[in-house]
C-alpha cells in the first residue's frame, strides 16, 4: 500500500492540475499559470535555501534574465524551444559567476550580496534601453506553437505550462534523490562534518546556487510568453522577497514546499479579495502566525498533525537493545 501511495498522490495531483482550469475564466487560468511558473522559480530557490542552506535574494533577477533573453530571442524569430535552454544556460552561467565570489560569504552577508545583484540587474534592465526597452520594457512576444498545438489560447498555454512544470519538478526530484541530494542534506545539517567526509562543500554549494538560478531562468522563459509584456518592475527586489516567502511559508527543504508556498502567496490574495481593504492585513497576519507557530512551514504543519493523529514509532534504541550496544 505504502509503495503505491506516492505515485497515486502524484497522479491525483496531476489530474487536479488538468481539471482545475476547465470552465474557468481567463483571469483564473492566468493566475494558475503564474502559480505554476512561480512554483518553478521557488523550487529552484528551495535547492539553494532549503537543501544547500544559502539565503539568496536574487531569484527574481534570474527570472528577469531568463525572461529578457527569451523575449529578445522570440521577438527575433527564434523558437521558444531554443530560447528556453539558452535562458537556463545563461542563468546557470551567471549563477556560477555570481556564486563563485559571493558564496565565500554566508548567511546575512550572502543575502546582502544577492540583494545588491538583484538591484544591479534591475538597474541594467531599466537603463540599457537600446536592448531592454528601458522602463517601457518589451512587448509583443508571441506564444510558442508546436505544430498542431498552439498556445495562444489561455487554456492551451496553461497546459503547456503544466507540462513544463512537471518536467522541471521531475528534474529536481532526480537531483534531490541522487547522491547530490544526500550531500546537500549533509551539508545543511553539519557542514564541517560533511567536509571531513570528503564532500566538496564549496563546489556543491556553488552548483546548488547555479542550478537554482537556472530554474529561475526557466520560470522567466515562461513569464515572457504568458504576459507578453515584460518590464523591469516585474523583477524588482520585492519579487525576490516574495519567492523567499513562498519557500519559507511552504516549507524550506521539503520537495513540494515551494509549490504549496507559491499557492499561498499567489492564490491566497485572490481568495481573500472579498474582504477588500482588509485582505493585506489578514494575509500578513496569517503569515506571521504561521512563522511563529510552525517555522518549518505548511508542510511542517502537516507533519506535526500526522505525528499527533498517527504517532510513529520513536526509537529509544538504548532501551530497546539493552546493554549489548
Amino acid at each position: 500500500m505504502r509503495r503505491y501511495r506516492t505515485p497515486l498522490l502524484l497522479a491525483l495531483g496531476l489530474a487536479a492540475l488538468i481539471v482545475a482550469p476547465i470552465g474557468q475564466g481567463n483571469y483564473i487560468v492566468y493566475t494558475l499559470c503564474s502559480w505554476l511558473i512561480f512554483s518553478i522559480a521557488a523550487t529552484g530557490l528551495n535547492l539553494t535555501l532549503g537543501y544547500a542552506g544559502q539565503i539568496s535574494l536574487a531569484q527574481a533577477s534570474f527570472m528577469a534574465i531568463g525572461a529578457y533573453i527569451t523575449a529578445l530571442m522570440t521577438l527575433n524569430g527564434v523558437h521558444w524551444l531554443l530560447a528556453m535552454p539558452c535562458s537556463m544556460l545563461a542563468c546557470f552561467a551567471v549563477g556560477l559567476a555570481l556564486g563563485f565570489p559571493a558564496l565565500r560569504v554566508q548567511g546575512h552577508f550572502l543575502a546582502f550580496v544577492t540583494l545588491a545583484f538583484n538591484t544591479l540587474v534591475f538597474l541594467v534592465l531599466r537603463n540599457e534601453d537600446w536592448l531592454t526597452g528601458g522602463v517601457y520594457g518589451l512587448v509583443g512576444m508571441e506564444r510558442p506553437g508546436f505544430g498542431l498545438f498552439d498556445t495562444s489560447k489561455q487554456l492551451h498555454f496553461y497546459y503547456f505550462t503544466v507540462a513544463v512544470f512537471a518536467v522541471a519538478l521531475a528534474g529536481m526530484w532526480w537531483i534531490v534523490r541522487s547522491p547530490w541530494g544526500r550531500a546537500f542534506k549533509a551539508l545543511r545539517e553539519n557542514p564541517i562534518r560533511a567536509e571531513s567526509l570528503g564532500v566538496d562543500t564549496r563546489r556543491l554549494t556553488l552548483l546548488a546556487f547555479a542550478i537554482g538560478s537556472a530554474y529561475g531562468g526557466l520560470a522567466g522563459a515562461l513569464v515572457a510568453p504568458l504576459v507578453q509584456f515584460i518590464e523591469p518592475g516585474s523583477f524588482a527586489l520585492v519579487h525576490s522577497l516574495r519567492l523567499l516567502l513562498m519557500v519559507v511559508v511552504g516549507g524550506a527543504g521539503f520537495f513540494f514546499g515551494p509549490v504549496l508556498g507559491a499557492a499561498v502567496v499567489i492564490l491566497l490574495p485572490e481568495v481573500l479579495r472579498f474582504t477588500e481593504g482588509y485582505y493585506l492585513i489578514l494575509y500578513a497576519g496569517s503569515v506571521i502566525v504561521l512563522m511563529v507557530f510552525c517555522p518549518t512551514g505548511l508542510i511542517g504543519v502537516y507533519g506535526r498533525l500526522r505525528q499527533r493523529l498517527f504517532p510513529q514509532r520513536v526509537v529509544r534504541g538504548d532501551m530497546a537493545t539493552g546493554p549489548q550496544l
Partner: protein
Amino acid sequence: MNAPAMNALPPVLTVRNLSKSFGAIRAVRDVSFDVRRGEILGLIGPNGSGKSTLFNCILGQLAPDGGAVAVNGRPISGSRASTLNKLGVGRTFQQLSVFPDMTVLDNIIVAGQEHHGSMLSRLFGPPDAGLTEEAERLIEFFRLGHLAHEKAGSLSYGQQKLLDAAMAFMAGPGLVLLDEPAGGVNLTMLGSLKERLLTYNAEHGTTFVVIEHNMEFVMSLCSRIIVLAEGAIIAEGSPEEIRADQRVIDAYLGG
C-alpha cells in the same frame, strides 16, 4: 605483513616540529612524532595540554605557526578537510557529528559516496551510488544493523557515537583520527566500541590515532602512547611504560 616489513614502509603520519600559539599561550611546542602503519597510537595529557590543538593542526582546522605534517610522505599542511579525506584520512569529532535528520544508512552512504565516481556520475548514477551493500556491512560490523533505517537523531548517545566512528571508516581510510571516542559513553558500550576498533584494526590494518581522557580505555586500546603536557611531549612508550613513568604521574597530579 610481518612487523619488520611494516616498519620498512614510510610512516602513515609524520609530524615535524609542529608549533601553535594563541597569543602568549604556546599550546603546542615543537612536537614531532611518527605514526607507523597499522598501529593504534594514543595521545593523552591533562586538560589544556594541547591535544586538541595538535589534532586540529594535523587536520588542517587550525593553521600551525610552524612545522610540517605529512601523510604517507606527502605534505598536507594547509589542505582542506575534504582533500585530506580523499587522501585516506578519516576522523571523528569530540562532539557528536552525525546527521540527525538522515537515516543511519544515509549517514554511512554519504560518508563514502564522494570517493566513488565523479561529480557528474554521482548526479546521473544510482541514488545510493551503489554503496548500500557496503554500507550495510559496515553498519552490521558496528552492531547497528537493527537501526539502519532509523533517523540518526533518534539513536541513543552511545549508538550515535558508534555511528560517528563508523562514518569515519566508510571510505576505507588508511588512517583514522578519533577525537575522544569514549567521551560520555557508558561502560558496556565502551567495551563494545573498543572491541570493534581492535577488530577493525586487526582485519584491515587501519592506523588509528586516538585522543582520549579515559585512561583505562586508552591503556587497553593503544599499542603506543604519547603524553603531552603544556604543549610538549613528555613521554612516549607502551601502556606499561607510560603507567610507570614518573613524569606522567607528576603531570597528571599537577606536580
